[in-house]
């Protein structure tokens, strides 16, 4: 149960960074931290104590094996997180080229 609570604390740190910080890079970092916390939480739900890796080998039954479905879901989730990070960095670089800063309080004015 402590592991779940630590996951929530990690998520809260990411949430704080997203809502409070003014730097776009810090916001991207906060989104990354939230994503890590959610991935770890899903894997913790599928964990089975003293379990084995979900790879079948000769002569072993599938008893006492970690649940592979959350792992497949989280694999897709990690990939989507990577694409999200790349896209956000591209947007941040464009904003820097246009406004010359990463500060979100300075970019919300009409210019040009």
């Amino acid at each position: 149960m402590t592991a779940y609570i630590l996951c929530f604390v990690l998520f809260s740190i990411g949430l704080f960074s997203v809502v409070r910080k003014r730097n776009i890079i810090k916001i991207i970092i906060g989104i990354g931290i939230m994503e890590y916390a959610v991935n770890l939480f899903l894997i913790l739900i599928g964990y089975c104590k003293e379990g084995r890796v979900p790879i079948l080998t000769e002569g072993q039954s599938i008893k006492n094996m970690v649940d592979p479905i959350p792992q497949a879901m989280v694999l897709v989730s990690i990939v989507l997180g990577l694409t999200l990070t790349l896209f956000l960095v591209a947007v941040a670089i464009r904003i820097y080229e246009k406004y010359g800063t990463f500060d979100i309080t300075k970019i919300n004015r009409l210019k040009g």
Partner: protein
Amino acid sequence: MVYKSPNKGMTVIVKTVTRLTLAFILIYGIYIGMTGGVSPGGGFTGGVILALAFVHIMLAFGKEAALRKLRANTLRMVMGPAAFIFLLGVATGRVPEEIGAICEMVIVGTGLFAIFIALVLASKSDRNSE
């Protein structure tokens, strides 16, 4: 810093080590991608490792060397058919798993490298203007 002179590349030590280890990185990526069915790994992981190998060339030798090895047209020519075969495999279920893994590897490697090239080329002009 790494990005001070993006056209020249890094020092001779980095270039030599890159030249020695590049083949091993590519072989490791292909191995991880191909043996995903029986051991940890998979098509996506292998594709990301292949993309990282080309990023490695780009960081060590500069932009021109990497673009000479992998042109934009080549990227386009390879990525489209691979995506088509992958879509066909998902739709019909007849394509073997290994070919699906290879297609996924090619798509991911070329796609991520295209993103990296786009980001590096996009920030070239404002560095010159500064």
